């Protein structure tokens, strides 16, 4: 059994049905035209997508508008300077402010959609929904073009979600389940990070091995046929699988990190997820999505921001800092946004009582590393953050740019079982929408 096969066996054994697909022949037939793999010389090797599900407010994070007045800024009206002269960000992001030279801010992301599902699809696939197709999101495309079929030999699948999938749509789309993300489940902020199929929450590693030994003593058929070559192969595969699972488990074992570092990330699910993401990048995992929920703040917006933005600030800034310190930032793209922004005008009236609605016309994204320049601001919104006034950036421009840095041709064709001519990413104005100014 090949190493790759052993890994698949291990994960299938551990994770159950969801990961059995690689063994079931769902992949494209051999005679089907192979997709063009990613250019191995590309600057970016991995991606960390920090997905703020629900839609964070661009005014309170990366595009503050204190001059717009209380009805727009609410109590968060004192943006702070960053390490980059002239660039200000929200007052609840002081640690990120110190890292501004490492990232660029795009303040003109736009798609105009205010529905969660459609907007999530747009921002993560780059494609308009419709035509009876579900396009894969970027992580699945990376899993296809930079995954097991193209030199990836990691212990865990090339596309990992921390900790749960979003459920808004199928991330792998028409590529099939073999390119779906491996969602860890569990909570890295717990004493034992129970990773689906790899680390049990209730059974220690030693106890697991003990159970395997006990099982052997009950294996009467195996004992009756000790020299069967089939059983021997099975036992060898199982042994490899166990070893692999055990090694994969160490990737998620945060007890191997110093408490001081764990504290720097913040003792929160989000903060510790950032730390896990760094470990996975070190291991070579291609695409990691950290799903952070709770940003759909129709009510109690400012109270929630005061709780969540410091968590984001601590986790993301430490991640950028650590990636940089370890020499990983140059090869790791980090991007952070939600499916849309939030209405710049605060909804003071009941039942919102200081909430913000959905706003897809104009919002912000942070991009860093992997070939993206730091310390830049792309595009601009109007004085209230309601509309893009300069350099509109569409989701396909952002994702197409990430593809470029990963060595994936945005115009490359994706395999599909309908024989359709489907490219990785639609282009805006013949590719002129790509973020060349920060690449």
């Amino acid at each position, binding site marked *: 059994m090949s190493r790759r096969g052993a890994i698949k066996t291990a994960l299938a054994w551990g994770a159950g049905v969801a990961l059995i697909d690689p063994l079931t022949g769902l992949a494209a037939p051999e005679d089907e035209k192979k997709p063009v793999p990613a250019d191995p010389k590309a600057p970016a090797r991995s991606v960390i997508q920090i997905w703020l599900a629900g839609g964070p407010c661009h005014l309170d994070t990366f595009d503050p508008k204190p001059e717009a007045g209380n009805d727009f800024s609410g109590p968060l*009206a004192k943006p702070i300077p960053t390490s980059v002269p002239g660039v200000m960000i929200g007052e609840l992001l002081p640690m990120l402010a110190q890292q501004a030279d490492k990232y660029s801010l795009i303040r003109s992301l736009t798609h105009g959609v205010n529905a969660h599902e459609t907007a999530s699809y747009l921002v993560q696939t780059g494609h308009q929904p419709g035509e009876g197709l579900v396009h894969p999101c970027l992580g699945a495309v990376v899993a296809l073009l930079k995954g097991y079929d193209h030199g990836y030999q990691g212990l865990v699948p090339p596309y990992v979600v921390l900790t749960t999938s979003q459920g808004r749509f199928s991330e792998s789309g028409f590529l099939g389940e073999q390119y779906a993300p491996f969602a860890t489940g569990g909570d890295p902020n717990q004493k034992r990070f129970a990773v689906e199929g790899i680390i049990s929450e209730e059974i220690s590693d030693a106890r697991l091995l003990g159970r395997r030994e006990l099982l052997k003593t009950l294996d009467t058929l195996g004992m009756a046929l000790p020299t069967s070559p089939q059983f021997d192969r099975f036992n060898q595969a199982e042994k490899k699988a166990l070893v692999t699972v055990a090694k994969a488990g160490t990737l998620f074992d945060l007890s191997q990190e110093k408490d001081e570092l764990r504290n720097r990330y913040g003792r929160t699910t989000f903060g510790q997820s950032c730390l896990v993401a760094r470990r996975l990048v070190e291991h070579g995992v291609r695409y990691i999505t950290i799903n952070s929920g709770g940003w759909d703040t129709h009510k109690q917006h400012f109270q929630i921001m005061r709780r969540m933005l410091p968590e984001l600030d601590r986790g993301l800034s430490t991640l950028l800092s650590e990636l940089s310190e370890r020499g990983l930032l140059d090869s790791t793209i980090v991007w952070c946004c939600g499916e849309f922004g939030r209405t710049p005008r605060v909804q003071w009236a009941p039942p919102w009582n200081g909430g913000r609605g959905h706003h897809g016309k104009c919002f912000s994204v942070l991009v860093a590393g992997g070939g993206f320049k730091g310390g830049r601001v792309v595009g601009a919104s109007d004085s209230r953050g309601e509309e893009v006034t300069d350099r509109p950036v569409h989701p396909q421009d952002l994702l197409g740019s990430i593809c470029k840095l990963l060595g994936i041709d945005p115009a490359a064709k994706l395999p599909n079982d309908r024989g359709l001519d489907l490219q990785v990413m639609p282009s805006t104005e013949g590719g002129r929408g790509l973020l060349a100014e920060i690449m």
Partner: protein
Amino acid sequence: MTTSRRLLLVTGLVVAASAWAQPARRDPHIGYLYPAGGKQGSVVQVSAGGQFLKDASRVYVSGSGVRATVTRYVPPMNVVGKELAEQFRQRLRAARDGHGPAMDEPPSPSPSPAPSPAAAPPGETGDEKAAARERRLEGLMDHPLIKNLDQLSPGELQYVAKEFRKRNRRQRNPQIAETVLLEITIDPDAAPGDRELRLQTAAGLTNPLCFQVGQLPEVLEHEPNNPDWPQIQQVQVPALLNGQLLPGDVDCFKFRATSGQRLVIEAEARRLIPFLADAVPGWFQATLTLRDSGGNEVAYADERGADPDPVMLCRIPRDDEYRLEIRDSIDRGRQDFVYRVALRERVDRPDPASSAAASPASSGSATEREPWARVDGLPELRETEPNDDGSAAQELEPPVVVTGTIGQPGDEDVFRFRGRAGDSVVAEITARRQGSPLDSLLRLTDASGKVVAWNDDHKEVDAGPITHHADSWLMAKLPADGIYHVRVADVQRHGGPAFQYRLRVSPPLPDFVVFVTPSGVNMGAAPAVPLTVQAVRRDGFDGAIDVALKNPPPGFGLGGARIPRGRESIRMTLTAPPGPLDPPVALQLEGHATVDGRTVSRPVLPADDLTQAFMLHHLAPAEAVLVSSRPNRRAGPPVRVEQSGVLRIPSGGTVQALVRLPGRPMLRALQFELSEPPKGLSLQSVRQVPLGRELVLEAEDKAPPVGHAGNLIVEVFMERQPGPKEGKAEAGKATAPKVRFSVGVLPAVPFEIVPR
């Protein structure tokens, strides 16, 4: 003016303006009334749940014969929850002592009985706190949650206490957390039907909510009344059942009925509160289930045609005791999930259910609805079957209105008329707007079947609960002399006796309807408040519509009171005389326009813009525009933009406008912005000039386009030092930064973009 009077006036502006610091935040609001109605000749105790109601003092109920007073204000649960919990504990303890060990006292919800900080003012001593707490406890005796505890059996008491603890842990909903208790007196001769109820607070009027005057005996639900409770509340037919559903709640009522008895069970939930802003679906979707004594389902209803409020028409199969269950379709609930269910015998009309004798129950049909509204005074016809294809098409002579039915699934009704080249013809279906389930598809074809025009859904601004604008409308210019067919079908190929429609075929009948929002206007210190006026243009009418106050009281006026040609919506402003507006003033508005060379006047219909499911907006009709203010209102000086006539702004250029300010020092601090200007129009600069402020307005080159007309509304801002509780000083600074706030708007000035 003396210095002291000037100072007083300026101070008045600032004080009044301070109240505008976050104007929308403090607008009083009611989210539910429970019960939402009462019987003629009765006195009803009603809870009004809402926000910013602390100083509610009066109640306004529309129409005559209904009077209401405020009994008292009950703070939200986060203020009095502990005191209420203590009341439950005391009652449970007493019940246990009186009824033996069968009762289990629930655990204390809080280890510390100390009042919450919100309830105990800082600085109180221990004795003072205890005394204050005692006063609060005494003051809560008639709280809706505990006032009837003495009437409950020990088991019921335990159940209610458990529900209370669950409720106390649930997510708070500030928008309905406060309660005002009302006493409503309904005269014996008060006209039955819907009324509007609003509360008057120091900050002005609340939004209206529906309060119904009924004729049936009223019953309030008596918790516990869930299906597994052994003693479900017994009622008698007829009755009007009132209740509120909390999450997962199912309310049950039992009644005896006899074999063959025909019952109508009609729920009203959405009718009472048409839209919930923060819920999906965006209303309380009630369902009704009728079960016999064995628990077998006898009838079920979850709609009435296209109306979400269910009606159950039911022939009782045998003498028995029946149980009616009311729940939300997806088991949601909250205090504003209020229902009224009329349970009565059906005596007046033939029972559609009788045709389905084997199935003794069915949901409601359009036959229970009001008669079809007649429109336009056009000749009327009834559809004549067979008319299912062109060869059997029914002859029409426009203008005409045909009443027809898509009688069975797949049916299509075809009508023919003779037309001349160049004539314009309108075909319009009225069905869903009258409660019909028909989702019409309308096609105009020539005699060969070639489609000239077609329409599925025609959406237009309308005030009402309809969310699917299923009726069709088309207007076409006929290409040649000859026979034309108008084809009516259901777009989903459904059909049946209830799929009725009215089809108008006529030349265009240009007309308009105008709505104004909001229906409740609270005047502040600023000279004006914005109103939004929306026009529904019918049959291609695109002329300008002038809006005017009808017989206005002195001092009231409109600014920018014209809906420009082709526009569907515009913001204008209302000005009111200085001083308090108490009681509120009811205003009537009219729209005037020239249609086909004649002046047409239509009443402007008051409405409120309600949000459904977080993002969708609908107009809810209201009975009147009521203008109110704080009792101590002192309007500021009459600041306005000096402009007579239309302000012409050159495309790609600038224009100056003067805001004349009286020479008062404090007014120099005023800041100005454009309120919701069209894209491309901005305030380039504000310059101090001897008479006040000169605003320089700039229009971009192409947006808005030449010819674009609208209203310029200038919003005024001030800054103030926050109080000690509001602001936090930065490190190293003695005071917190100033807070900028909106004072209000100046009267609207019409503008037009002209060539440079």
